[in-house]
């Protein structure tokens, strides 16, 4: 394989994960964590970092073992590997950042059940070489990350008047009536709907232009 071809392949993987097959607005996966952790930008960043770590490494690990793993226990092994990384993240947070672990509550553990992780392992890691699987996991979870950050930024600014805990001019002042619903899970539903709507509309326009 020539380096040029590898480059174009990598680019292709990135475009798929970040944009064309974006896990949030195209596949609509992993929505539970979207709703739960996006009311503060800081929580979202940590949650997304944990997901990026888990998805890319577990997909790569599944790929490393793909020739050894018998087909009939494939899913069990995948779950085991994902669980392994999730526990590592959880233990790390508990030891070095206990306040953040308290903030995220059970959601770090629930990365295990996030459909994106299993989805990438099954769809990509189980059949492709480790390098590509890692890249695919990375890009897909970054696609998840950037959408979540958009949602979280809107929710924190509209609902609390702050960004990363710092007061935002105007929104933290008396002239802004804080939208309390944005802090609660229903607010996430509305924000998610608007974001999915917007990006699908954008994609549609792009496709029409390409024709």
């Amino acid at each position, binding site marked *: 394989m020539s380096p040029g071809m590898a480059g174009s392949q990598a680019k292709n993987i990135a475009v798929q994960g970040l944009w064309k097959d974006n896990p949030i607005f195209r596949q609509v996966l992993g929505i539970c964590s979207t709703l739960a952790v996006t009311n503060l930008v800081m929580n979202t960043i940590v949650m997304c970092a944990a997901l990026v770590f888990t998805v890319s490494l577990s997909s790569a690990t599944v790929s490393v073992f793909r020739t050894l793993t018998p087909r009939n226990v494939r899913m069990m092994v995948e779950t085991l590997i994902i669980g392994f990384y999730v526990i590592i993240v959880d233990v790390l947070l508990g030891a070095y950042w206990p306040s953040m672990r308290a903030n995220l509550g059970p959601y770090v553990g629930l990365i295990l059940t996030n459909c994106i992780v299993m989805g990438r392992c099954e769809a990509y890691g189980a059949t492709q070489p480790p390098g590509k699987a890692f890249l695919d996991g990375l890009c897909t979870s970054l696609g998840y990350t950037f959408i979540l950050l958009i949602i979280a930024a809107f929710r924190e600014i509209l609902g609390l008047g702050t960004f990363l805990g710092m007061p935002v001019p105007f929104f933290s002042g008396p002239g802004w*009536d804080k939208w*309390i*619903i*944005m802090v609660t899970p229903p607010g996430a539903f509305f924000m998610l709907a608007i974001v999915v709507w917007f990006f699908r509309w954008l994609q549609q326009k792009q496709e029409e232009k390409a024709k």
Partner: protein
Amino acid sequence: MRARRFLLKQMIMRRVLLALLPCLAGAVYFFGWRSLALVLWSGVVGFFVEYLFTRLRGEPVTESVFVTTTILALIMPPTVPWHVLTMGVVFAVMFTKEIFGGFGRNFFNPAMAGRCFVYMCFPLAMTAAWSPAAEGTWGALDRWTTADGPDAITTATPMAHLKSGALVLVPEGATLAAAPFEIPEDQIVKVKRLSFWKVLFCGRLSGTMGATSVLLILIGGLYLFFTRTASRTIIVTVILTYGLLSQILNWAGIEPVPAALTVLLGGGWLFGAFFMATDPVSAPKTDLGKIFYAVIIGVCSVVIRNFSIFNGGLMFAILIGNMFAPILDHSVRAWTSGKAARPAKEGSPA
């Protein structure tokens, strides 16, 4: 080129608007001209939002949007800030109606969903600032608003005081004939039951803009009832369920359920029963479905009003009822067609 029709005429919606006029007049009379301005403004916003979407679909704006915005404005507190009302209207028209495909395709009552949204979003603006109803023959007709100055704002309506126990209704020997505008904290005020009912009937007390007066609601509501614009089944069943269940719980001595008349007359409950539960789009279409739907609303309002932290139980009850409407219709149709299919001699259902 032929000019496209801009506004779709809907006779039913015009009748509902006509029926809302007494309440609108009451809003102006009790709380000042600001009420009228709020209603008109919400109409403008609602029209604009609906126009944005109907233009895409090449359809005209429906007159039903004005029913939504007028009802939504009338069930706001008279002190509602402009941005809160605007948000409510935008949400109601855009998120509960237009994204589902416009008139006739929404499954929640837009006015209720809009109110629910702002109620959750701005709880302080929606529940913590109430202005008094104007006194005197001419009411607030000479004023922009009755909420002038900090003294003219209270944090709770008489109905909320009644729920929290600060206001107690007694049959005889009360110190006061009418509910006072403000009750100091930790005090319990006793009011004569009959005179409290009278005040509720006339509507000269603090509460939502257009739904304090039972008399005015009844004028409009009975017009809808007798012209069959609103479903009689729903109105009668909702009122019966709510009244009976409240009265039974009250007799059983369960706190804090008040007697049926108090809850039926108070807090704009009848307004909801006549104008909102009967929304032809979000209510079931089958007769049996309507009865079940109304029972759900009645029971849920009793439970939510008395045993939750919220005062306005009807709002959530109607939304819950809306949620069940499609499956009620579906089950009723399945059941009747199943019944008709079994005895083969009977004709097939419509």
